[in-house]
């Protein structure tokens, strides 16, 4: 009974993760500016990866593979913000008129 329940939750999590990635790809097409598109991609990086990997852990059970999956979380969530930050910084530094694309506010 418990095993079936865990399998169902794992499958649901996996399917929701696939849906999140579909939404992220859709967002890449729906948004029209690079910084906005990065937010759509970030949804896949955070929520999509989380749902898919949690789904895999639940389906596979607690094992060495699950520990390695947690390592993937760790490496991905440590490196992804650094890459995003560099791309965003490059875009803001090189664009001639950022105010045309978005409102700039000083607080």
């Amino acid at each position, binding site marked *: 009974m418990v095993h079936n329940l865990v399998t169902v939750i794992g499958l649901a999590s996996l399917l929701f993760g696939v849906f999140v990635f579909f939404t992220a790809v859709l967002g890449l097409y*729906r948004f029209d500016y690079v910084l906005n598109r990065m937010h759509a991609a970030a949804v896949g990086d955070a929520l999509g990866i989380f749902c898919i990997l949690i789904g895999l852990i639940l389906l596979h059970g607690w094992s060495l593979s699950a520990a390695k999956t947690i390592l993937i979380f760790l490496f991905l969530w440590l490196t992804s913000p650094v890459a995003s930050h560099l791309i*965003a*910084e490059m875009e*803001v530094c090189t664009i001639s008129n950022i105010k045309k694309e978005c409102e700039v506010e000083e607080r």
Partner: protein
Amino acid sequence: MFILFFALWLLMAGTMTVSTCLWGAAVSGMLCWYCRRTLGYQWQWRRYTIRQLWSAVCYLWNLLLEMLKAGVVVMKLIYTRGRNMEPKLIWFDTTLQSNRSRAVLANSITLTAGTITVEAQNGRFCVHALDASLAENIESCQFQKQLKELEA
């Protein structure tokens, strides 16, 4: 650092034989030496109180929840608003003192979908928000309050 490399080696190897341990120790030692000598890494022991450790755990838990919540919010925006967004670039000062806390705050903001840290220099942050609603009170967000507690 050596222990971290060694634990990583054992985890990736998946077995605990004498040969694995010896190879692991040798490779970890070499990597440790390379990191210290060439990359200039230094490992410092710091004493943390139980309260600080508990605050760190609470911070990570809060970060995970915020990441998931923000992901759902951005998904909703993708379906409902499409190109009718009001993106915003916000400059604000942080009250955090240490570089470590500032780096953690910058990474946390970027990990939360809907906001990206564009620049973080000398306590001045530049954050791009997908929509104005996501940028409300960003300069006094929960992350900053928790990191302030950790700094104390």
